């Protein structure tokens, strides 16, 4: 009925898994960095801002290669992760998730930071005068009010992760069933004689998934706005 081959399904499922893991795993860090960038004042803030945005402006291949250098089995971080946690990233789907997370991170931080900056900081002051300690103020005032931005950031990151190609293929290659996500599969199909039909099928899948993700995020955003927004 769907006309998708088993390989197509594998690529689709892998893409969704990689994008979901990349988004969820980087979300807490993105919220933390966005909060710091939005509210804190410290020397080196510009540097942090620049580092976070780097993957947005660098060629994805460069990001992927840097990841390979750092997180490859012989890279300093990769070797440490393997010896300490037994976690291998290079040429694994977890590595693909890391590459996608790094590429989506700036988009996520931007969206969350903007929504935190839009919150009246005096609401936090009001909460403080009511006896709320800082962490509680963040959880009960800042975070719920920033939820639309958090959601938007997560959707952006997810979309970016679904489409990520350059960093992924450089860092973890394109291994069927392990790291061959939708974009990788489409690219592979176009490089194969007679692969046009596959490429076309997968392209249709990518379009459908993108539209579905957009619709879902729109629906969620409307729900959140209704809960968070001030209207009775």
């Amino acid at each position, binding site marked *: 009925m769907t006309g998708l081959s088993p390989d197509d399904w594998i690529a689709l499922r892998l893409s969704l898994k990689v994008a979901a893991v990349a988004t969820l795993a980087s979300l807490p860090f993105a919220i933390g960095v966005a909060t710091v960038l939005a509210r804190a004042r410290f020397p080196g803030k510009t540097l942090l801002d620049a580092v976070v945005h780097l993957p947005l402006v660098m060629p994805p291949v460069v990001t992927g290669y840097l990841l390979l250098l750092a997180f490859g089995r012989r890279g300093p971080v990769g070797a440490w992760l393997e010896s300490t946690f037994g976690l291998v990233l290079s040429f694994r789907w977890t590595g693909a998730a890391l590459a996608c997370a790094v590429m989506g991170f700036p988009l996520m931080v931007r969206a969350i930071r903007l929504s935190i900056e839009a919150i009246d900081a005096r609401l936090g002051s009001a909460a403080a005068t009511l006896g709320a300690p800082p962490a509680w103020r963040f959880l009960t005032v800042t975070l719920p*009010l920033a939820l639309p931005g958090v959601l938007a950031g997560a959707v952006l990151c997810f979309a970016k992760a679904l489409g990520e190609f350059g960093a992924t293929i450089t860092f973890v290659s394109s291994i069927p069933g392990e790291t061959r996500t939708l974009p990788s599969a489409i690219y592979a199909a176009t490089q194969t004689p007679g692969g046009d039909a596959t490429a076309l099928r997968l392209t249709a899948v990518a379009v459908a998934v993108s539209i579905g993700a957009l619709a879902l995020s729109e629906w969620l955003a409307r729900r959140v706005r209704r809960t968070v927004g*001030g209207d009775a």
Partner: protein
Amino acid sequence: MIEVDVRLDRGAFRLACAFRSDSGALALFGRSGSGKSTVLGLIAGLLRPDAGHVRVDGETLVDVAAGVFVPPHRRRVGVVFQDALLFPHMSVRGNLEYGRRFGARGRPVDADAVIAMLGIGHLLARRPGGLSGGERQRVAIGRALLSGPRLLLLDEPLASLDFERRQEIMPYVQRLRDELGWPLVYVSHAVDEVARIAHDVVLLDDGAAIAQGPPGQVLAPDGARGASGRFGAVSVLEARIERHDDAYGLTGLAHPAGPISVPGRLGPAGAPYRLLVRATDVALAVQRPRDVSFRTVLVGTIRAIDTDDGPTARVDLELRGGDRLVALVTRKAVDELALDAGDEVFAMVKATALDERALAYAPRVR
């Protein structure tokens, strides 16, 4: 008991302010930019002074020299902000209950009584976005109270409201003071609000406390000049209810300088009231007036006449009994009546000028 001695330097704005007060109803009064809200922020812990200290009931909240800074959430000092600052993502109930979680160590509060007193029981399920300005401010007061603060700071709580809403909120603040006996610090640039709420007034100007005392002394006549200009000049008189004239719907108050008549039926005989008299509502006579409609005639002595080449003149009186009264009359009248400092005059006030916004039940607290 509140003790403030702070310095703060923010470029163009310098604050160097010191005062102490035992009153349960203290007002910080001054025009915009005089540093009132800054002082409030320093008491609440939302700002840090460059030097000095703040003590409340003997506890040091900040002392720069001693390296003490109690963060705002441990100060048990509640704040009602000018624009309420309710949490938009919570219901009114959620807002009210927000501080309850942390209020256990504070003053015990009867939540139902506070909600009833503020008349916000029917709003509990609503969102702040759907409330009127007056309702929002009442919820903000309730939210601050329910956190059980030992001291309640009100930062121009009525400034963003229109006249009607202001009259709606004012009685609640007075009930807070009188029925609950809650210690409060009230910041405002509006003379009538301060006259109705405060028992002790600190006048701030340009970041410094330049005068302190009961409203009658600080607000008028000299004090109010700084804040409100000539046409806004007011005086504050302290009087007691003497009798009710039910046939005419009037209340008579006793004042050392003469009887005062106001419309409406006010509290029981003997109750102390504070009256706010606008300088523009006062007329002067050199002899005891007869055959005039004024029911309020007060005897006093001219202290000073302030005039220039303009059409008006400000006449400062010391009434019998010590209260001060300022009258704004024409320069022509001053010349034709040959008014001069030291003269005894009769000040007349229209009863209808003394409506509800000019009257405040003013029990002596402590």
